[in-house]
């Protein structure tokens, strides 16, 4: 065990950090883009604050298309775009673009369903006190939907850890890269198992932390 750690410890640590960095940066960027999209999808839905059938339908299509492309295909298909945007399509930097593109529609739907959960009653109450559309979005929908959005964030982060492992297989670095290089090409099962265990711990940790945070933030359960 000690020998194993001495030989592969640094490698596994830097792989873990790379994976986490990719997933975290990807998640943050996906929320920056996905929250406005989710808000737009909610607010333009029929019977909502600013119903707009055409816009809502087109937005829905775009989000669905984004969600229906398997990540591994997105990874390859986006190579030219990634190169254009980041100057490179390989390595951790190159992996961020497909991760964000894959996660944004996912986040948009998650935010949309969180906001829908908020319910018409409180929105109507806010309207009856003269709140504007912008105030209702920030002060009612996003505020009341926050615990659900936090839960969604941990799910997104976990999904992106999985995706970034896939990206690793095409040279993005991180745990996926290590598992493929050592486990698959060099038949070093122990290294591969180590990456699996690290991934399990990461996922469990993020899930628990997310649940805890959502529970602390949510004032409904006290």
């Amino acid at each position, binding site marked *: 065990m000690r020998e194993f750690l001495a030989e592969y410890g640094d490698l596994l640590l830097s792989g873990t950090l790379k994976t986490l960095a990719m997933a975290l940066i990807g998640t943050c960027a996906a929320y920056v883009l996905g929250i406005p999209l989710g808000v737009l999808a909610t607010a333009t839905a029929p019977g909502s604050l600013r119903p707009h059938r055409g816009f809502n339908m087109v937005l829905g299509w775009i989000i669905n298309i984004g969600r229906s492309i398997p990540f591994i295909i997105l990874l390859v298909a986006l190579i030219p775009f990634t190169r254009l945007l980041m100057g490179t399509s390989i390595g951790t930097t190159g992996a961020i673009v497909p991760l964000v593109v894959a996660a944004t529609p996912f986040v948009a739907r998650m935010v949309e369903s969180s906001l829908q959960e908020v319910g018409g*009653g409180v929105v109507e109450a806010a309207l*009856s006190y*003269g709140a*504007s559309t912008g*105030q209702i979005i920030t002060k009612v929908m996003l*505020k009341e939907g*926050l615990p659900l959005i936090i839960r969604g964030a941990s799910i997104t982060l976990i999904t992106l850890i999985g995706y970034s492992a896939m990206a690793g297989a095409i040279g993005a670095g991180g745990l996926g890269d290590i598992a493929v290089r050592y486990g698959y090409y060099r038949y070093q099962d122990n290294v591969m198992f180590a990456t699996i265990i690290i991934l399990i711990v990461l996922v469990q940790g993020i899930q628990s932390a997310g649940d805890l945070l959502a529970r602390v933030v949510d*004032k409904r*359960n*006290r």
Partner: protein
Amino acid sequence: MIELADLSKTFVVKGVAHTVLDHVNLTVDDGDIFGIIGISGAGKSTLVRCINLLERPTSGSVLIDGVDITGYSGRQLSDLRCRIGMVFQDFNLFAQRTVLENVTFPLEIRKDPRHKREARGRELLELVGLSEKAHSYPAQLSGGQQQRVSIARALANHPSVILCDEATSALDSLTTNSVLKLLRQINQELGVTIVAITHEISVVQKICNKVAIIDDARIVEQGLTAEIISNPQHEVSRRLLGAVSWDA
């Protein structure tokens, strides 16, 4: 004063028109506690929601202090809504805000400074008897307490009118009485006009000086509570007022 003049509302659902309010005429004077009673689906909620334009009338007008508001939008509409408080059957409190933050929400919308909001909020919580709950969350309160919070919230902007849509329908009879007493106190001490929607005649008997009976989209009768209760003119009124026959 609130006047509904020839007010009609038609919903079109899948190409079929449903007339929910059919040429309604109604006058609520300042200082009234005006009851609107009718069975489920009669159009009570739609009627009261037309008063602050949560629902846009299809035709006819809503006059508030003699001014037709049906054309209002934007700034004008939100200013109007600030002058009309609203209380809902299921309270509609903000679960992620404290009691104090709920009560001061209408002031936050108006961008009042924090210290002013809090002072007003504490004053209102005192009025509804919930001062010690200022920092609790709605989930920690009983139904009756939640409705008191929502009444305090409705009063935040010093409105001249409060609209109550089945304010006591989710409460047991003891709690109902205390909430009704609070509404009457608000009417008497602050001079706030109250429009109270209900399907329970007891609510009308306890606090309303006037009442309108709505049935199937129309007002079938309106006037002083005492007169209508002692001498109902319309079949529907008699049915609503009298003990409803079990076998009917």
